[in-house]
């Protein structure tokens, strides 16, 4: 099977190169035979890579430990559920996964693009093939990169090393592929953008062609980031979900620029402005997705969740520089074709507020990028590394984030072109009052923490704007068409998915902001307890939680030895329940320990707060346990806010909304004509 797999990689490499060559030539010369050949190469590439994936999975399931990758990431006693996920647990496998998914997306783009957008396809096929070929080149030139997943060992180990226990979690099975899907699918909008530049078809048409793709990759990134936070919270045991680690930042950066794009594209559709900016955002997002892979794989930045440091990073570095140079060179050559159709008319308009939204999103992305690269930059310029951690990122990004939250409320409601005072009053009188009253209520309740108070006040403002919009939409339908309230509510979504789905996303975002504000009130304590002894902690709501250590138990499970410690929890003297936290030592089939021990956190979650108990250690030969108890307010809302964001994204993406885009584009054109008269 590995022979077939290696062969498939080589065939795929050649097919990719052929698809890129014929696609570019066919596109440039208008040769239909070359274009057809390129398209066939894209389909064949996808098929061949799927064969390679099947080969690797077969090797994994057969426990063919002669294959280095299989021996390095699985073992005989690894549950089947995690055996297939070993496909992307290691670097080599994830390269194959990446190339395969990209080829699938490339084939889908060829197959599903509407007839009127097919003019872009030759270059789209060429670019997806080229990117895919790059990933394949990393694998096939294994003598330099050591990244062929089908490489065999000189001997056959009896058992494999097994999967890192921290990766043996349900959350971990879906978190990396979601992020990968997000990163990878940005390639399609990027390919369309480059194709629009190369074919000089730079009207709003290519934006319509990529709308679903940009939403798709944004959705995948959002879900992937949320799952990542969840995994970090449940698994790493430090009591938080976001540490501004370079790898986390690498996933956040393209999310920020894609979010900016999803907003600014509306300005281009409606008013023909921001053409350069939108192209720049797409190219930038794609480069950031490659950059993310570069820093996770190369180990150039310390304190990364780095995979094995290897030459692969240099492949990515070279590719990144090459891709950035070429794409910005083409972009620069086409700049004269990207003049705006209209001008900004007033600062108090939707255009202006969307511009600020974009400025803030890109500003945040810039600060995150700067903070992430700081060790490299300072070493380059002064010779010593300077690093920043969470406090710096928070001090810079909390004010920017709050300003962004304000524009989340203003942007969708303010009038296009120029807003009048009556318009402003009509839209914002009630929400602004709600926001101010909320802040006053919080101050009256004794809350004095600046940022959380502002965050919750702004969230109330945004929430009221959303309710007001739904109320107005539903009651208008109710009055005009005599629909029942419920039907009117459903039709509101059906008739304008983008707008009302967008409000649902905003609702999720403001819930996330409130949840992040709750993080400021995290309290924790550490204690060493004998059985029967207890530790108390006062929650931010004023309750006293008491944790009583009940004892230690030790037992064997499927592929691990478990040391479990249990505490009884009571709130203000009343029993709430039991919480168990474990130390796990994973073992191989012979019972020898593998990997470092891992910790299972005991979590009790409700809408108000999480109780988070970590077993830090057991004093040798006794039942004395060292615990860390943490109370994390509002964490529950992070996960549900994230789900609402994803739900809103799905509503916007749901098929059938295309006609509205066309109608809107036409409406925008009509506005343009009126403006010119």
């Amino acid at each position, binding site marked *: 099977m590995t022979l077939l797999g290696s062969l498939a990689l080589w065939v795929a490499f050649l097919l990719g190169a052929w698809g890129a060559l014929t696609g570019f030539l066919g596109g440039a010369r208008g040769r239909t035979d070359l274009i057809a050949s390129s398209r066939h190469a894209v389909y064949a590439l996808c098929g061949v890579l799927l064969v390679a994936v099947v080969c690797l999975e077969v090797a994994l399931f057969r426990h063919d430990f002669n294959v280095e990758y299989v021996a390095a990431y699985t073992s005989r006693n690894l549950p089947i559920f995690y055996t297939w996920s070993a496909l992307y647990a290691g670097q080599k496998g994830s390269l194959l996964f990446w190339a395969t998914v990209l080829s699938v997306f490339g084939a889908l783009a060829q197959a599903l693009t509407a007839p009127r957008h097919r003019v872009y396809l030759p270059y789209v096929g060429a670019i997806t093939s080229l990117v895919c070929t790059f990933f394949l080149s990393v694998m096939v030139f294994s003598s330099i990169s050591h990244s062929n997943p089908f490489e065999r060992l000189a001997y056959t180990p009896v058992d494999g090393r097994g999967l890192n226990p921290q990766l043996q979690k349900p959350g971990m099975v879906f978190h990396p592929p979601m992020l990968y899907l997000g990163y990878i699918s940005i390639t399609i909008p990027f390919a369309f953008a480059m194709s629009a530049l190369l074919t000089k078809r730079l009207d709003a048409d290519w934006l319509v062609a990529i709308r679903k793709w940009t939403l798709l990759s944004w959705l995948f990134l959002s879900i992937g980031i949320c799952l990542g936070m969840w995994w970090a919270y449940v698994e790493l045991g430090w009591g938080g979900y976001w540490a501004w*680690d370079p790898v986390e930042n690498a996933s956040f950066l393209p999310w920020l620029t894609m979010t900016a794009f999803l907003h600014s594209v509306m300005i281009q559709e409606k008013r023909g402005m921001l053409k350069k900016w939108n192209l720049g955002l797409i190219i930038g997002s794609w480069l950031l997705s490659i950059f993310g892979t570069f820093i996770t794989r190369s180990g150039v930045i310390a304190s990364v969740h780095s995979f094995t440091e290897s030459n692969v990073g240099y492949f990515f570095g070279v590719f990144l520089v090459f891709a950035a140079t070429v794409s910005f060179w083409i972009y620069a050559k086409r700049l004269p074709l990207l003049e705006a159709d209209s001008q900004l008319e007033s600062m108090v308009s939707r255009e*202006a507020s969307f*511009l600020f939204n974009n400025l803030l999103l890109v500003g945040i992305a810039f*600060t995150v990028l700067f903070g992430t690269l700081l060790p490299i930059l300072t070493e380059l310029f002064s010779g*010593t590394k300077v690093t*920043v951690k969470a*406090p*710096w990122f928070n001090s810079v990004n909390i004010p920017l984030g709050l300003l962004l939250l304000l524009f989340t409320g203003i942007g969708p409601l303010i009038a296009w072109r120029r807003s009048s005072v009556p318009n402003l009053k009509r839209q914002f009188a009630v929400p602004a009052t709600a926001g101010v009253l909320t802040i006053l209520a919080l101050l009256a309740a004794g809350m004095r923490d600046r940022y959380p108070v502002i965050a919750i006040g702004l969230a109330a403002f945004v929430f009221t704007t959303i309710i007001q919009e739904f109320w107005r939409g539903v009651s208008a339908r109710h009055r005009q068409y005599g629909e029942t309230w419920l039907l009117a509510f459903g039709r509101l979504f059906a008739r304008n998915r983008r707008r009302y789905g967008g409000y649902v996303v905003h609702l999720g975002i403001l819930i996330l902001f409130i949840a992040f504000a709750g993080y400021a009130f995290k309290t924790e304590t550490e204690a060493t307890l004998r059985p029967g002894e207890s530790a108390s902690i006062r929650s931010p709501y004023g309750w006293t939680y008491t944790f009583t250590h009940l004892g230690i138990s030790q037992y064997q499970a499927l592929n691990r030895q478990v040391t479990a410690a249990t505490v009884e929890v009571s709130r203000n003297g009343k029993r709430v329940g039991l919480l168990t936290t474990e130390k796990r030592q994973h073992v191989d089939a012979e019972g020898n320990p593998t990997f470092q021990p891992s910790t299972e956190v005991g979590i009790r979650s409700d809408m108000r707060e999480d109780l988070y108990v970590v077993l830090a*250690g057991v004093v040798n030969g006794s039942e004395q346990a060292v615990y860390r108890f943490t109370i994390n307010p509002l964490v529950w809302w992070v996960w549900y806010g994230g789900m609402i964001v994803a739900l809103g994204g799905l509503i916007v993406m749901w098929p059938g909304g295309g006609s509205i885009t066309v109608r809107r584009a036409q409406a925008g054109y009509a506005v343009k004509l009126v403006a010119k008269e």
Partner: protein
Amino acid sequence: MYAGGYWSASVSRLYNGIMKPGLKFAIFTVLIVGSVGYLMASGLKQTGQYFFTPSELSQKLATDPTFYDVGMRVGARVVPGSVNRDVASQTISFRVTDGSATYPVIYRGIAPDTFNDSVEVVVEGRIQRDGIIHATDVLAKCGSRYESVPKA
């Protein structure tokens, strides 16, 4: 009254004449970019930390004797066999090295699961006059993940 109305109207006309929306937007942009820059720079002064290897740290101490008791981070390997754990008081002491310079570290707190005597670590803390790094945070690097246990 009328004169006032006239004046304010002409002032606002003048203002609208000079302050084209594009210009206003540019001013706002400069304001935002400026405040972002200010936030970044001031934050850097407050929370930026040097990152050293042990030999870079010894060089820094040689050239700048005032560097003791300043927050910094050191990336190095743990010296095998040097780890001393006291579970009851949650104190861990060990030595870190990069081959040429070695420093002792004392850390009070919960070490990450991946920490043992053969890993690469990033130690965050201050070096005292006694030559010991008093760590406030230890990050251990392992396989494919870093783990962090920041103290509140």
